[in-house]
């Protein structure tokens, strides 16, 4: 049984590493996003190996179903998806690599040293079930949980601000024909040259030719 788990862990690890490498190395950013999804999927498998079913499912639901899809969504809307002229690695990649490795080591080395490698404890089935996670969030990790929530809220507000168009620069939305006619009616309640006509329903209130579709805000006032 252990051997099977080990093999599966190895395969999953390879998948995660390979996918992560592809994320940073492929040219096409859509492909990068798709590799990212593969990477997330591998992590979900890792959770499963740890008997953390709930976490695995949440990982799939949130990271693949929501985060990755949103990333894809955003990426697809960008203009340049695949530019063969752009080098994959930018110029100072060596120093960047060095910094990355150092940072990674700064996290990993203490972990390796502090971890007790000798004992392999099979985690309990209820290691990370919904109940345990709920208790953990509401007790031990309440503060981080709240901070994360505030952070998300801030992100939400930021997104709205970014998405909101600038009031000054904003284009007035396109007027429909009915709006245009109503606007014209407001501006000139009764056409003076045609006041001889008793019926407002007559065809005499023929409009001037259709104005351009876009009206600037300044003009509208």
């Amino acid at each position, binding site marked *: 049984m252990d051997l099977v788990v080990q093999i599966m862990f190895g395969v999953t690890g390879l998948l995660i590493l390979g996918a992560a490498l592809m994320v940073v190395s492929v040219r096409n950013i859509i492909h990068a996003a798709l590799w990212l999804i593969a990477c997330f999927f591998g992590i979900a498998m890792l959770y499963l190996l740890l008997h953390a079913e709930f976490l695995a499912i949440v990982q799939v639901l949130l990271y693949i179903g929501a985060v990755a899809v949103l990333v894809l969504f955003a990426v697809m809307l960008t203009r340049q998806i695949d530019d063969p002229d752009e080098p994959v690695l930018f110029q100072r990649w060596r120093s960047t690599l060095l910094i990355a490795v150092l940072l990674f080591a700064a996290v990993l080395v203490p972990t390796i040293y502090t971890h007790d490698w000798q004992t392999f404890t099979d985690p309990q089935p209820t290691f990370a079930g919904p109940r345990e996670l709920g208790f953990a969030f509401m007790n031990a990790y309440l503060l981080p949980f709240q901070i994360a929530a505030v952070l998300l809220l801030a992100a939400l507000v930021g997104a709205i601000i970014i998405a909101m168009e600038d009031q000054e620069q904003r284009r007035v939305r396109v007027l429909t024909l009915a709006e245009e006619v109503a606007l014209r009616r407001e501006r000139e309640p009764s056409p003076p*040259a*045609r006041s001889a006509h008793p019926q407002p329903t*007559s*065809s*005499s209130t*023929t*409009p001037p030719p259709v104005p351009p579709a876009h009206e600037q805000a300044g003009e509208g006032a």
Partner: protein
Amino acid sequence: MASTSPPLPNARPSPRDLLREQLATVLPHALVTLPDDLPDLIRTADVVVHADALPEVVQFVIDHLGYGLLSDLAAVDYVEHGLFELVYRFYSIGGGGDLVIKVRVPRDQPDVPSLMAILPAAMLHEREAYDLFGIRFIGHPNLRRIYMWDEFEGFPMRKDFPKQGDNYIGEGA
């Protein structure tokens, strides 16, 4: 919109006479007086106006006679007489018969002022007449071919357009 009001049209003078009478007083320069000895084919009882005065006449017809519905615009090629005739047909929403305004332009210089500034209804009519007869409507914002493809050469409804053969097809074909 009561149902009781009597039908109007028949009690009045015919729209054609009305128009001729009114134009004679208001826009006398617009009317074309046709010679009496015209060939049968191009003799007409309808009001013929000068091409230049057309927008004025139409504006007058819409505003003061109430004929605001541009129903039809037919171009006719009288090739033997060297002219194009444009038949503008107006109706009144109030009912009754048509009011016809005819414009005659020489075949070699078929320029007519566009009605687009007055009536958007003229848009497709004028494009059609341009496409099939080559009548140029001065002031039309989008005077392009409508049925034939853009590369097409010639105007297929003209009487002198070859009825057979394929050499008239433009380069694009």
